[in-house]
């Protein structure tokens, strides 16, 4: 069981956003997809969750074809995408934001159990269940977005820029939580990050995307140690 992407190409109108990209993420691995602004990271993630249409190529998660499926159907096959920018619904309460992640299972008991697991993981959310999501801080919103995604019991988690707009200390907390998800729940994660250093530090493997093509892949530690990667993407 692994995420296999083969020769994936995605066009935005006349612009080729992703060009012939292939890579594999093994089950239980945390892969960091890094690269500069406009490298195509978000496009790649949105294509894997069914929000964008591919031009050609293949992408599968175990037996599930990720391309040409609707996102709401992929959730039913264990694939969950947390989109960029604190993917919560501001008008709903914290509790409702969690619950929408489990509505498709239409099983009240399972929903309550998942909620309990997630509130143990993020106790701060438990104190704010009745509050509207837009009263939360940036870090809490990101926790809520993660929590909503976990409500659907994903096997593969696609995370888009969880660190966006957060204070450094909060970023560290969020990254630690993400790391724990892989280890304690066995969830496979593809993490897209602008904060390349932070992402590589918690990741098992790194994939560097440059202008829609793969520049480098490898174990996360070896990418951190690679002088070329350091100079181009880690900023020192």
């Amino acid at each position, binding site marked *: 069981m692994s995420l296999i992407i083969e020769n994936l190409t995605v066009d935005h109108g006349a612009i080729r956003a992703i060009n012939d990209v292939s890579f594999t993420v093994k089950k239980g691995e945390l892969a960091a997809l890094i690269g500069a602004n406009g490298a195509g990271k978000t496009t790649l993630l949105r294509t894997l969750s069914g*929000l964008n249409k591919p031009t050609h190529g293949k992408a599968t998660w175990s037996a599930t074809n990720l391309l040409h499926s609707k996102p709401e159907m992929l959730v*039913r096959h264990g694939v969950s995408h947390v989109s960029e920018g604190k*993917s919560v619904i501001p*008008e709903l309460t914290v509790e*409702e934001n969690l619950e929408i992640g489990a*509505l*498709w299972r239409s099983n009240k008991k399972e929903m309550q159990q998942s909620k309990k697991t997630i509130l143990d993981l993020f106790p701060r959310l438990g104190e704010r269940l009745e509050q509207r999501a837009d009263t939360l801080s940036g870090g809490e919103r990101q926790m809520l977005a993660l929590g909503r995604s976990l409500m659907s019991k994903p096997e593969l988690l696609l995370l888009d820029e969880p660190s966006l707009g957060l204070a450094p200390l909060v970023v560290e907390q969020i990254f630690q939580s993400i790391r724990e998800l892989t280890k304690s729940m066995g969830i496979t994660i593809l993490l897209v990050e602008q904060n390349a250093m932070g992402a590589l530090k918690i990741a098992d493997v790194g994939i560097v995307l440059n202008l829609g093509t793969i520049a480098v892949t490898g174990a996360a530690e070896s990418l951190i140690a690679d002088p070329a990667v350091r100079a181009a993407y880690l900023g020192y």
Partner: protein
Amino acid sequence: MIQLLNTLLIGITAGSIYSLMAIAMVLVWRSTRVVNFAQAGMALLSTYFGYEVIQLTHSYWIALPVAMLAGAVVASAIELIIMRLLLKHSSQGAIASIAPIIATLGLLGLIKSVIGYFWGNQDLSLESPLSNVGFTLGSDTLAISPLKLFIIIAVAFLVLTLSFIFQKTNLGLALRASAYSPEISRLAGIKVDLVRTIGWALAGAAGGAAGMLQTANGTGTLSPDSLEFSLLLAFGFIAAVIGGLDSLVGAVIGALVLGLVLAFVLTYIGGSLVFITAFVLLLVILLIRPGGIISQKAGRRA
């Protein structure tokens, strides 16, 4: 004194019927961001189905739920067949925001023609199930009859049922989530397309109820060019805008405000100013509080 009481009663009865129409507009707006001008035609068509049921069974009480069901079916069909295609194929460019609205206007004409084709253009009469003669208080006649009392109770029941669905059920949560953020809802696993169709179906049912109640309370006649249904559309729309177009609670409040204002104008100023008042009220709201009379934050809750 009795005149004041009667004016209030007339306003509340009219307002309750407008509120069903306003709710129908809000439900469609929330689920697909379309102002549905075909709502009057859909309500009219539902009422014609109700008329047929009365011919068959001689019972308004069977006809009312059947008309609501017919409204739901017609609305779902329109959403599935026309709106989905339209939203898919004209989702880009200047036409995107206008095409669906123009389509609903076209649909209004189409539905009226279909009704004319099947039922003819003459007036059909729909008998009121209850007496519309006012109760008496001493020597005075009140503007509340068994029929009007039934209308108010029926509308209150429907509004409470809807608000229960929206606030307490999983379907309601899915309806609200999909209205606020279709993309996040999809990513959470909600079948947003299906939820939209359900939103239209609920709107169709509310419109069907409005049509049946308005016809019984009004002239008791049906025709494809019914002035009553055009007014129902106009007043329902104005009420929805007063309420902020996005809120069910707002729609009900907007409708009651509109019903009361129009009743007072009718009693104390004169019938000729009723329509003007409705549109002036619309303009004033749009100028002072374009987001509606109740705050956006509270409004989107229900």
